[in-house]
């Protein structure tokens, strides 16, 4: 499959431009950036026919270096014999999660690029979120129109990885029916039910979301107590019990 790469980041456009210019030259380049920012995808997209090896397997890297003039080395930071490598007159594209030994990197590579983290690429976030949503709806077999997707809280601490998790978790949480929620609780309780105060200890699983959602939906405690059909004082006691006041 041909890799595609889409970005609206100026910084990445400059990286692509520089790579396109040097595509036919024998120079070594490295893309350094946090995990899951698209470094490997970018390398694959720019050099679709290049042999790809991982720095996790030193022997494979060495034999690939001996046999190929064009090579993508992913996970370069994991390679322990960096300072012994000879890239002369080869086209090397390496990707690394971090710089490691700066002197060695500086010595090996002519072009040292920094891949910006996803948090610095707002438009890319929107684009990638769209891709993951499409994938998630299809994988989880959820009808897209059944879930509101505008306000999904996105976790970007691990770039696309945590972004993807945010989306799958959100979709699961917003598409479960009663039966599935009961099943989730069943498996949770099966694992955790213990001791001699189990009823009270696990009541919060029901009461906390009930009260939180109720307050959000109905605003005041007065109204909520009416909707729940319980005494206002009972509700206030519950709020205090669950530290919701």
């Amino acid at each position, binding site marked *: 499959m041909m890799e595609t790469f889409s970005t609206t980041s100026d910084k990445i456009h400059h990286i692509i431009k520089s790579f396109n210019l040097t595509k036919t030259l*024998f120079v070594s380049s490295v893309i350094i950036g946090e995990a899951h920012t698209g470094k490997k995808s970018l390398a694959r997209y720019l050099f679709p026919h290049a042999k790809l090896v991982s720095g996790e397997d030193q022997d494979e890297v060495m034999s690939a270096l001996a046999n190929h003039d064009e090579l993508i080395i992913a996970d370069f930071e994991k390679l322990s014999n960096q300072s012994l490598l000879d890239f002369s007159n080869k086209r090397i594209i390496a990707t690394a999660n971090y710089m490691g030994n700066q002197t060695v990197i500086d010595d090996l590579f*002519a072009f040292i690029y920094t891949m910006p983290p996803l948090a610095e690429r707002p438009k890319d976030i929107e684009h990638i979120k769209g891709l993951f949503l499409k994938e998630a709806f299809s994988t989880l077999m959820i009808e897209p129109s059944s879930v509101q997707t505008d306000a999904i809280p996105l976790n970007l601490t691990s770039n696309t990885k945590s972004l993807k998790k945010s989306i799958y978790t959100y979709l699961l949480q917003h598409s479960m029916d009663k039966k599935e929620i009961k099943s989730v609780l069943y498996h949770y309780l099966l694992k955790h039910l213990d001791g001699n105060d189990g009823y009270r200890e696990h009541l919060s699983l029901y009461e906390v979301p009930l009260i939180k959602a109720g307050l959000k939906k109905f605003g005041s405690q007065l109204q909520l107590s009416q909707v729940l059909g319980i005494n206002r004082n009972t509700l206030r006691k519950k709020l205090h019990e669950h530290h919701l006041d």
Partner: protein
Amino acid sequence: MDINFQPFVEWDNSPFILFSHQGKILYLNNAAEILFGYVSKKELYDIALSYAPQSFGYKTTSLTLNYDSFLFHAITVGYENEEEITLRLYNAPRIKPTRKVESEKLILTDINILLEANIALFRTKNTNPLKLLTDQDLPAFKIDQNTFSKLLRKIFDTFKASDSIDISLKLLFGQHVMIDNKKESIAQLAIHANGRYADADEEIRALASANHIKCLLKEHSIKLEIPLIQ
């Protein structure tokens, strides 16, 4: 036998200038013509007067003169009448490259591509305004693409905090350098700005010399004289 010496002077690699007593140039050879791109007529005329012999005749003085990439180690000043005075500057020998050119390692390259690519790399990190004036007709020449790119990266990085970076690339007409007994043309890459960092200068010098490139590092500029190895 009557020998016409003028062509010898004309094509001498060392600059030769004949001034009138008012400091006007009456004659100059090719090498001097190039030199005048970098030093004023008045400055050289003043030097001629300062080092002139006491009376008619010729006097050679050892001294170091440096104009841009030109380096001279001696001058001869002479006059045979009150009307004219001559100045000859002696080129200091270029430092012979200690390493042989490993020409099998060199690849025929369009330098403009490497330049553009390095500018793109620079722009991924910096937003400084940058102007490039290049000679698209510069012939391709043989170079170690990786080390040369590294050299360009290090040079550009010294300008990371500068405004108005001007880059120009041109052929130095009429100038040559001998590499492995072959006469090669020279291209000049010059980068000017309002200032630069000097912390990588040693590395830049080392990378340049590994590529048989002469480099001139100044407070506001870097100039490279790149042999166009064919």
